[in-house]
């Protein structure tokens, strides 16, 4: 009788299911899914719940695929940054070839499925979003210019437009305003992070604004973007998806956002180092809540419209 003995010579740990889930950046995926859901629900064309759910699964999988491809491409800099060195590839839990295969497969799968479930326009939009995040942002801009996050932020801003396209098959001023809200929010959000993760980006050689232009310039930029963001964030109140509830909420949120940006602008490197960037970290945390609440307010407005409680005579300018 012959006995067969298996000897594992590689020493590499076997990738678990959870490691592949981590490759899809589940935290980013949650934000993508939420904003896409809001775009879909706020659109004037009703969508069957099963179709809406299936479309959101496709959008989520597409976002995850883009995340896996981003981790595949950035595996060298992820390994030297404290924030990212625990990711599946730099920690050795997943082979980089496996991440590439997963990303490419899920990208194609999600786009084709969205085309079948919803419409070709939404599928093409999702494909463009994945392309923008992986090729334009990750491969090209991220390591080339301090404005990387300004242009690359568009990738994270497309999901509500994709959700809207699932329902309507097109683009409308309201969906563009939702895009603008995330697009203009992204730079101050990431620059605040970069202020207290400066060492990480310096070590990795990523030309984030604090690395390339200095802390003072970054603080100026955060305040400038907060001021530009405010009118763009309030504008949806006067579109087909807005109303008085959104206007009141957006007004308060933007006042707080500008106050936070002002507090960052007043500080310098020494004061930030003295309290370990307490203000910057608080602003970064608030910026996440800020975006979540804006889109929640749009959901509230959609609910009020569905219940027939929309404000009569509310000016719709966009």
């Amino acid at each position: 009788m012959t006995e067969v003995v298996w000897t594992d010579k590689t020493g590499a740990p076997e990738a678990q299911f959870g490691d592949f889930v981590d490759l899809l950046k589940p935290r980013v995926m949650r934000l993508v899914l939420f904003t896409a859901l809001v775009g879909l629900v706020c659109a004037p064309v009703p969508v069957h719940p099963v179709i809406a759910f299936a479309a959101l699964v496709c959008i989520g999988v597409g976002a995850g695929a883009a995340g896996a491809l981003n981790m595949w491409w950035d595996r060298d800099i992820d390994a030297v940054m404290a924030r990212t060195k625990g990711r599946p590839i730099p920690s050795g839990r997943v082979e980089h070839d496996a991440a590439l295969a997963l990303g490419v497969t899920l990208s194609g799968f999600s786009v084709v499925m969205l085309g079948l479930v919803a419409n070709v326009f939404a599928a093409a939009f999702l494909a463009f979003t994945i392309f923008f995040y992986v090729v334009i942002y990750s491969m090209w801009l991220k390591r080339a210019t301090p404005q990387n996050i300004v242009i690359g932020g568009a990738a994270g801003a497309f999901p509500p437009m994709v959700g809207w396209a699932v329902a309507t098959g097109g683009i409308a001023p309201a969906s563009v305003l939702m895009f603008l809200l995330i697009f203009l929010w992204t730079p101050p959000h990431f620059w605040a992070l970069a202020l207290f993760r400066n060492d990480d980006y310096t070590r990795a050689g990523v030309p984030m604004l604090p690395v390339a232009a200095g802390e003072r310039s970054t603080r100026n930029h955060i305040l400038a973007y907060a001021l530009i963001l405010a009118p763009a964030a309030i504008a949806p109140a006067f579109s087909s998806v807005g109303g008085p509830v959104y206007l009141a909420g957006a007004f308060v949120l933007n006042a707080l956002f500008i106050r936070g940006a002002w507090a960052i602008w007043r500080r310098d490197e020494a004061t930030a180092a003295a309290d370990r960037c307490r203000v910057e970290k608080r602003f970064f945390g608030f910026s996440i809540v800020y975006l979540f609440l804006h889109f929640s307010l749009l959901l509230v407005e959609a609910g009020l419209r569905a219940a027939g409680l929309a404000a009569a005579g509310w000016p719709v300018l966009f």
Partner: protein
Amino acid sequence: MRPDSHEIYGRRRSRNVGLGIVLGALVLLIFAVTIVKLSQGQSMEGFDHQIRPTLLPATEPAE
């Protein structure tokens, strides 16, 4: 030692179970979408290099 008792099978168990659940969910999702699209009366056939009568717009019969 039996080959299937090696601990590598244990390590792969979570991956296999996870993948099985994902594939099962995918089957259910496609089934549900199919039922909804059929119940909404959507055309289930596309152009296949040959015009079939069912793809032509319906015309009223002449009096």
